[in-house]
């Protein structure tokens, strides 16, 4: 009987090494991107690249959000969205380092900044992807509440994708226990939600840049807006 030997199974496909590291390589291969950055010693350069991308993308999303009210909101909202994103990241940086190290990661300030800027850049990129949808509604609806709701939902969706990449990058850097990072992610969302109140008005007419003297909890603010 003529038996034929089946061809050997191919080896598991190794994750390709990305070429020039950028937000796009992060989008497709988060773990390989951060791994390559560490291996090539490009952590700082990549952090700068991610931060610049994040600021630009967040500003573009802010600009589109600002078209809803137009006028002064066209410059105020991009400024607040980009600044708010960076502020939230810096606020949560110390806890990211502590939780990361607790989770088994080899994490210092430089790598923590890489993780944060990568997450923020990817979130920003996703927000730019959502921008046409936001623009479509901004020119067709007159409801502040609907626009606010839409912006928060879209921001959360974009953050989930950015956060997913951050988890993959963290796994590449040795994360074994995920409890701390879970808590950190929830806390970051909470900070972002509070910032939607702190940086008001993001939706609706511009009256002043910030309501610094009117301190409010975001739930109270949302409930009042919904009335």
């Amino acid at each position, binding site marked *: 009987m003529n038996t034929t030997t089946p061809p050997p199974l191919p080896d598991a496909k190794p994750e390709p090494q990305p070429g020039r590291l950028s937000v796009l390589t992060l989008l497709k291969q988060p773990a390989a991107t951060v791994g390559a950055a560490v291996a090539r010693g490009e952590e700082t350069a990549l952090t700068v690249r991610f931060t610049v991308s994040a600021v630009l993308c967040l500003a573009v999303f802010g600009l589109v959000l600002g078209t809803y009210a137009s006028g002064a909101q066209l410059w105020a909202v991009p400024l607040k969205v980009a600044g708010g994103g960076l502020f939230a990241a810096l*606020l949560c940086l*110390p*806890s990211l380092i*502590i939780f990361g190290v*607790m989770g088994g990661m080899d994490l210092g300030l430089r790598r923590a900044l890489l993780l944060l800027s990568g997450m923020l850049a990817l979130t920003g990129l996703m927000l730019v992807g959502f921008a046409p949808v936001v623009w479509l509604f901004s020119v067709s609806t007159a409801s502040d509440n609907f626009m606010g709701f839409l912006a928060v939902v879209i921001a959360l969706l974009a953050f989930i994708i950015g956060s997913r990449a951050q988890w993959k990058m963290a796994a590449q850097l040795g994360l074994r226990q995920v409890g701390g990072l879970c808590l950190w992610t929830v*806390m970051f969302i909470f900070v972002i939600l509070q910032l939607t109140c702190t940086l008001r008005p993001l939706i609706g007419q511009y009256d002043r840049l910030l309501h610094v003297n009117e*301190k409010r*909890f975001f739930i109270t603010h949302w409930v009042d807006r919904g009335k």
Partner: protein
Amino acid sequence: MRRVTVSGQLGELCRGRGDGLQIFLQRGGARWLVFTAGAAILGNFAYGLGLGGARSLVMGLMVGVKLPLVIFLTLAVNALLNALLAGALGTGLGGRQTLRLLTLPFGLMGMILLGLAPVAWFLAWHAPAADGDDYKIWYPAFLLLHTVGIALAGILAHRQILPQVRALAVTRARGTLVFFVWLAGNLFVGAQLTWLFRPYFGSPGLPVQFLRDHPLEGNFYEAVLHSLRAIF
């Protein structure tokens, strides 16, 4: 001889492993004890400043002093019981070893709270005026948020010593058992001590003071139930 840096020690503490940590757990060492106590004081002070700072700076400073006190009193109140339980459950851990093991999570909890302190300050900055209507909604939410945050920080910090307890105990199962008994005891006592040292940012209408006029009235668990009812 290898130079021990603060950041290296912090890394060992956070990971719950490392040469220095092993030597401390086996034979003791003043340096580690000072380091964990210092971490507990610093972290709890920084977080307490944010917690009480929601009401006023004076309140923030008071809470910055009270939180480390609560931590050390929890350790002290449970010290004898925890050592006895370790013996009764047949772990083979002695009294000193138990005490050394249990100082670690309190130090690590301090580091976690130090990391969370900027967020606590950020939230405190948003506190509405204590005599306004918004404060009545904000207060229970803020109370619950910090209660959950501090409890999770405590649980995560304790979780880091679980491998060490298992390794040092006679069997892995007994190590696991005694760990959960210690954790439950520390959470239970810690929560009630926290209650006794109230106020932390002050119920609406009540003055800023270091301790309430009748600090021993009521308990922590009733207060949480009350807050939940106020929100929902």
